[in-house]
């Protein structure tokens, strides 16, 4: 089981993630050409301007209106993306398999970042219950996604602190990580892939066509 998870499963996960991402982007590109309004109005400059405003903390009025949520949200997304890529344990696996390696995070910092992800997932969950609008629009799938996102980080922490049987925890960790990667293109986590496109389009409609700001 461990060998399968360490080898073929990782391959499958990455192939599904990369293949799924390419498929979604190509499909959206093709479909968007059927629309009268997307391609004729796209502007690189205004697209990038809009993306920049929404990637820089407090770059948009809505972020300034809710500073705590903005900080939590940026921390969450940063830790969520950086920790798995720069974790020493992950880089070592790549080095063993392919002989490539890159800069890594100190383990203590990676540990804190993982805890941040888990804590913010809990805050997001509580917000889904406490905020009347968010509660009204929350579906079962939103809860499933939160669990899928938290999975690899919770099991990663369990492995780090050697909580329960290490080998079993590692297998669960690898499976949850694989699941996380594989669902990205096919669930609402696809916002990670679509963000630059939706933002660039809106930035172009506001900036290029209408001479206005969208942040």
């Amino acid at each position, binding site marked *: 089981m461990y060998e399968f998870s360490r080898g073929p499963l990782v391959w499958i996960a990455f192939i599904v993630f990369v293949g799924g991402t390419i498929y979604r982007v190509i499909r*959206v590109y093709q479909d968007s050409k*059927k629309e*009268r309004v997307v391609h004729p109005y796209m502007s690189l400059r205004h697209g990038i301007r809009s993306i920049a405003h929404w990637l820089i903390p407090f770059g948009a009025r809505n972020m300034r*209106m809710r500073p705590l949520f903005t900080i939590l949200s940026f921390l969450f997304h940063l830790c969520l993306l950086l920790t798995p890529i720069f974790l020493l344990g992950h880089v070592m696996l790549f080095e063993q398999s392919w002989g490539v390696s890159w800069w890594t995070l100190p383990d203590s910092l990676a540990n804190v970042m993982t805890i941040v992800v888990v804590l913010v997932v809990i805050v997001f969950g509580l917000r889904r219950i406490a905020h*009347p609008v968010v509660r009204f629009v929350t579906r079962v799938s939103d809860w499933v996604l939160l669990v899928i996102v938290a999975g690899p980080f919770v099991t990663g922490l369990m492995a780090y602190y050697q909580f329960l049987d290490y080998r079993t925890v590692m297998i669960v960790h690898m499976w949850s990580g694989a699941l996380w990667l594989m669902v990205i293109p096919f669930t609402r986590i696809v*916002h990670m892939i679509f963000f630059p496109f939706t933002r660039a389009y809106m930035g172009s409609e506001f900036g290029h066509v209408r001479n*206005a700001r969208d942040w």
Partner: protein
Amino acid sequence: MKFKTTPESLVKDSGLDESIKKLTPERIAQVINRVLTRENSARLQVYLDTCVHCGLCAEACHTYVSRDKDPLFAPVSKVRQTLWEMVERKGNVDGEFLRNAARIAFTECGVCRRCSMYCPFGIDMAYLLLIVRRICSLLGVVPVYLQDTTNSHAVSSNQMWVQQDEWIDTLQWQEEEAQAELSSVRIPLEKEGADVMYSVIAPEPKILAQLLGNMAIIFKAAGEDWTMPATDGWDNSNMAMYSGDFEVMGRVERLHWETAARLKVKRIVMGECGHAFRGAVYDGPRWLSWQYPPIPMVHAIEYYYDLLSSGRIRIKQKYKEHVTIQDPCNTVRGRGLGDKLRYVVDALCEKFTDVNPKQEHNYCCAAGGGVINCGPPWKRSRMVSNRVKAEQLAKTGAEVVITPCHNCHSGIEDIIGFYNLGMHVKFINEIMVECMEKPEESQG
């Protein structure tokens, strides 16, 4: 999904109540699926897949904020109660569902696009609610007053059933009125090759004719070479765009542009109206598969800015009363004219206090987007939906609200009355005519 009984859900409107009785489940599903799959593709799919149900759009909406943050009125909630259900149930919804969807899409959202500026992904929720309106329109489920304006567009090519002889007669009457002020004023009809065709919305000849006379005086003072058509095509308004009848919308816009082409003018200058700008410059041409309008269209705000900044119009004495402004969504968020509007107001008025939030972030008037055209049955709901505007205006301490848009004008006037703000609303052109230097004095 069960709908809560609210005062709004009890409002009677034969355009909704009677028309849903004629629908069959097959017809509903057929129309919904056609609109979802044949008329829309990438944007709809991406927006539905990308929305993470975070609720960050809520605070952007005047309806939500004004109704004590009732979750049913947040932008995402409006989409959830309408389009999400239609998509998930593959169009298998009943008449009661459609009635509620129509109420939400037509009377509780002004498609002002403020929420797109608060969504981290820039999801165009106004577009999503316009899809709902489109579906409702094809099924005939449209508030009866709004449908009447669309019918008028379809029959008479203008919004208010104005006949051609009434149109010409009104212009001649306004020409005489303006001559009392400035004896050499003309309203030149059908002048081929003029620099400017001036177009207005039908409520101007119908109920606010003095605005036409004012504009004739301004054109005279500025020495403009201008004309107006004597035929259909003079009306630049387009309620069909908001009722979801895009076929009529396209027809209205085509006629407007073809009239300008027939008169061989260099550009169209239009009166103080927001949605007309949107229809003529964006929604109309796009429906007709034109990337951009065939000749330039200049909104009144921009035209006044050019007149004042170039010195073609000089101000004799500034307007004395304390003023503030309403930023119309379709010219400020839709054209970036916020700075020019402030330049014009500063040039005309002695005391101007800006609103907060302002420019693109200003709150909607809750009247545009076809909402006020849904008529008297929905007026109370419209007033309750914009308490935040009343509070915002009251804080300025101004006596006059300048509203360079007909929908904003009527909407703000209603709000001032409903909330007893004791203010007045004015178009820029009324203040300009009062304050500017005129080339010769009247003989009378």
